[in-house]
């Protein structure tokens, strides 16, 4: 299984680490392991946090795995992890499940902001889109299937059918896009559903006729981010830090971590550290917008 394979590895590693720690140096205090799982959008920054945190608190080991926000939240509800990363908010039904399953309230911390960028190939002449157009391209009843319908001529392309690049359904990005760009309508069948934020950008970068959505932190030189206008008119806004913070960009969202109940001990310290200046600097380095607002030095 794609997901469970990925997720057993850290458990094994954790088991090994416990064994090595216990067998090797009995003098040092026992290591604490924090299990983090969830959003693929946040997996890069979560890894960076985990690596940096091993310098801050050498006795704590943070194990990070992805799988999608839905996977992380499901694991939190089962009580198998300490922290769930989510690029969408927990739904009322999920909060209820967590309550009945574990007897604890899920506690939310907003750790940063992200803009969901719309990517096209760098040679695509289109200059901006609006939310309605996105819905006509991506939604089930949308009528736009060719670039020529948008008045866009692609150089050297015989078949200008739009290749829609989407995400697998466990992804928080998928659900956020469905809710905010498609108004909760379903996606048109036949989109390429990628298993990660990076894969979306990679495929778009290789395909002249493609359009896809992914976190703004994943931009590469092979793609361009399209400025996006809100539905019902208004100027198109590029996905910048300022536009994300002011929410002028239509697909801006918060990134959150969830714990079961009010976190204590090492988990509490870890979450506090994410929100500290140090943690927020790392978040910003990974291409996201810090919660504290004023972006330092950009």
């Amino acid at each position, binding site marked *: 299984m*794609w997901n469970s394979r990925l997720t057993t590895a850290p458990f094994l590693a954790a088991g090994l680490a416990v064994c090595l720690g216990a067998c090797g140096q009995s003098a040092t205090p026992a290591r604490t392991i924090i299990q983090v799982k969830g959003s693929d959008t946040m997996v890069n920054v979560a890894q960076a946090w985990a690596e940096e945190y091993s310098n801050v608190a050498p006795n704590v080991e943070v194990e990070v795995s992805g799988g999608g926000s839905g996977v992380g939240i499901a694991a939190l509800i089962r009580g198998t992890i300490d922290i769930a990363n989510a690029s969408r908010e927990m739904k009322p039904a999920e909060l209820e499940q967590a309550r009945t399953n574990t007897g604890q309230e899920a506690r939310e911390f907003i750790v940063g902001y992200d803009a969901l960028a719309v990517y096209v190939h760098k040679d695509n002449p289109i200059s901006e889109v609006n939310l309605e157009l996105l819905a006509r391209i991506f939604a089930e009843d949308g009528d736009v299937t060719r670039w020529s319908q948008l008045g866009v001529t692609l150089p050297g392309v015989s078949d200008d059918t739009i290749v829609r690049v989407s995400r697998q359904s466990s992804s928080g990005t998928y659900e956020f896009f469905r809710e905010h760009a498609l108004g909760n309508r379903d996606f048109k069948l036949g989109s390429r559903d990628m298993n990660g934020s990076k894969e979306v950008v990679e495929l778009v970068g290789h395909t002249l006729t493609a359009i896809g959505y992914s976190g703004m932190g994943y931009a590469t030189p092979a793609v361009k981010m399209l400025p996006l206008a809100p539905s019902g008119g208004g100027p198109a806004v590029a996905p910048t830090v300022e536009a994300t913070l002011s929410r002028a960009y239509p697909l801006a969202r918060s990134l959150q971590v969830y714990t079961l109940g009010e976190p204590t001990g090492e988990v509490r310290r870890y979450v506090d550290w994410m929100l500290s200046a140090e943690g927020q600097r790392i978040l910003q380095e990974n291409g996201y917008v810090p919660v504290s607002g004023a972006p330092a030095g950009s």
Partner: protein
Amino acid sequence: MTDLHAPPEQRAPRRRRSFWAIAGERLLETVIRLSGISAIIFVLLIFFFVFREAAPTLVSDSFSLREFLFSVEWYPTSASNVRYGILGLIVGTACVSGLAVLIAVPFSLGSAIFIGEFCGPRLREALKVVIELLAAIPSVVWGFIGLTVTSRIVMASTGAPVGVNVLNGGVILALMCVPIITSIAEDALKAVPDSYREAALALGANRWQTVRRVLLPAAKTGLLAAVLLGVGRAVGETMAVLMATGHAVHIPDGLLDSVRTLTANIAAELGEAPAGSEHYRVLFLTGVLLFLITFVINLAADLVVRGVRRER
């Protein structure tokens, strides 16, 4: 076991065996018998547990088997209108596996005939080792090759907008099937008694005539078994097709369109489906369907093999 049916005077004089020797033999016999039937037990248990997870959907009111089998609309997590139609996935599986078998069978039968009948002993040993090595490559590595290497080649040579498509998946799956079909087919050819070859030679047949008129008909059942095992591998393979086919739910327009297969769909979605939810059960039902497909293939193979035997 001693030969009890021989007349007493011909029996070897029996040494009295100790109690432990007899007990040991009995124990070993039981163990071997158990391992023999364990395969049946495991298959039944697997089917039972998969079916048990899936069964509640079959009787639920919101679920229609007809929609499940004949609708393309697969929206398991829709916010407004949840639909479970797997026709697109079935077609995806059929396209990728079918293409893989079409590519793999001529190549592997050809190489089996070459290894078995035409090449010298040293080349034969080298080829067999390499083919076994090919069989030992993990499927995730094949998927990786499909994602990064062959998809680029497919894009460059066909001008397809997306490299991860039916053709790419079919080529990767064919590469995975070739070693299996080749080694079993080669064994089947080897099992044809040498007297057949000698008789053909004595009648003045050349090598090609021997292969075509004598060996292939004689090894027919074994070759068919080899091909069907290849089909089974192609239908059941998950990791490689998950990475190499592009993961798009729809009925493909052609060889250069992306698809999603039944197996890849289960692999991608089971992790997020809450245990016991309808989505989870429908995924298990897909598993039951896959089980039935392989069962029918094997049964068909068995019937064909029996039919061939009866003709002789």
